[in-house]
């Protein structure tokens, strides 16, 4: 069974069918791009997979565990990390604290340890800090531990969000428009970063993105969504040739 398996999920809001019959199978080391015009239901797919919404029908499996109806925090703890279209870092917490937040649910110490500095807790805190530094180093933000995210540039905030998602120790990483609002140089660095973590850590990555040069260059497989439906699945080259995809993006020729 693949690491992430989504089987025929549907989701409607009132009369709007936001997702119709979406399926995906993603394994470690793979990068799947999800593209489509605005309102195609891409973020809804992410929200349904990560538990913000519950699918009307269909099933989601993470590493063999059925997670379709689980609560969000439980899904996260099973190994789902994600970033957001509009950056959602905790303002008012430092970079380090932001990243540590995602580690805390995994750290193991008792209520007593919460109050007193027991050896176990100190060891766990140390492990957390080390992991935090490791992931911040991977995204190239290690020098900003004590900064507040709101004082940093957009590109940097995106990187911190990725570090925070990595801190969840994910088996599947959902990146929702990671390149939105970045300048061309930053997009290049981000592409390089995504490629690197995919190889280094080895999880499945799902990537929603409007910057086609980014998606096309790093995705193994591309899913094209339009009005809630999957209109094409294939390698970047196949998708580029697909008549229906061209129509969805550029309109029909008369």
């Amino acid at each position: 069974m693949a690491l992430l398996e989504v089987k025929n999920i549907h989701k409607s809001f009132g009369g709007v069918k936001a997702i119709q019959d979406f399926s995906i199978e993603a394994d470690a080391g793979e990068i799947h791009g999800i593209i489509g015009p605005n309102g195609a239901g891409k973020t809804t797919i992410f929200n349904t997979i990560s538990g913000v919404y519950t699918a009307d029908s269909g099933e989601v499996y993470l590493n063999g565990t059925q997670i379709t109806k689980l609560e969000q925090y439980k899904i996260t703890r099973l190994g789902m990390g994600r970033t957001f279209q509009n950056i959602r870092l905790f303002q008012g917490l430092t970079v380090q604290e932001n990243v540590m937040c995602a580690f805390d649910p995994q750290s193991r110490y008792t209520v007593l340890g919460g109050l007193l500095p027991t050896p176990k807790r100190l060891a766990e805190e140390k492990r957390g800090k080390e992991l935090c530094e490791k992931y911040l180093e991977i995204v190239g933000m290690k020098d900003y531990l004590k900064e507040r995210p709101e004082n940093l540039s957009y590109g940097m905030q995106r990187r911190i969000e990725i570090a925070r998602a990595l801190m969840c120790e994910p088996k599947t990483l959902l990146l929702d428009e990671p390149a939105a609002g970045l300048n061309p140089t930053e997009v290049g660095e981000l592409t390089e970063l995504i490629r690197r973590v995919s190889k280094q850590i080895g999880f499945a990555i799902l990537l929603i993105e409007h910057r086609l040069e980014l998606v096309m260059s790093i995705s193994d497989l591309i899913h094209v969504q339009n009005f809630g439906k999957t209109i094409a699945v294939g390698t970047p080259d196949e998708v580029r040739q697909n008549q229906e995809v061209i129509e969805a993006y550029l309109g029909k020729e008369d």
Partner: protein
Amino acid sequence: MSLQIILNGIATGSVYALIATGFALIFNVLKFSNFSHGATMTACAFISYFLVADKGLGLFPTLLAAGAAGAVVALFGEFVGFRRILKNHSSATYFFVSSITLGTLYEGLVTIRVGSNFFNFPSFFNKPTIGIGSLVISTTDVMMFIISVAVLLVLAFVIQNTRLGRALRAVSFDRDTAQLMGINSTRMIQSAFVISGVLAGIAGVFLGIKYTLYPSLGSLVVKGFIASVIGGLGSLPGAIAGAFLLGILETVLLSLLGSGYSTIATFAVMLLFLLIRPQGIAGSNVQEKA
């Protein structure tokens, strides 16, 4: 202005600080003012009065009982009054209605038990006052100050340096994102209620000692509310600063103007703050989410 008055003000302020932080904590996490906080204080003060203080067991067992009662009452309130509203992401108006209803309920229950009589905590100390030079301070005031500050220091440590505190802050800033980072928001909100309940219990006992114990004692929560408005709604350090400021201001005004006008003057100060600096001393970080 004599030092004596300032000292009394600081002691009063320390109790206000307990109320205000309990209030601010919930405001932070849920973005609404928990108006059942006052009645929780009254209920806890009475519970500990009948269970412990009445049997002559001393101040610390009384405070422990009140704190424990506070935790239980607050958890009950969270479950009955707020859980469903939170789950549905309903508007803050419902919290408002729900918390006022809960408060009225608690107060009603207390009234049924005790009537509208006044009760007095037994005096916990052999020596009612401590003399330092020409200053005479009541032992209760000193203990109140010491215990309140100790409690607040522990709270500050927990919020700043522990996993629980970090998770609480994360949930305060964005409940939904915190969930997606693996934090059990419901559990964190419960924790906030427990902490706030414990603070309410301790504050209730202190108010009962300082004034008397009566069913509408909880209306003194207004002082905590004013303090947290002056400090900046949702900011804990602000709430504490606001509380001490208010305590001192009150006793000073009391000695200058007498009890009638000093109350009016206190409210005038709050209105002034709302007019000139609505975000409070701390300039709090409560913002609309984008």
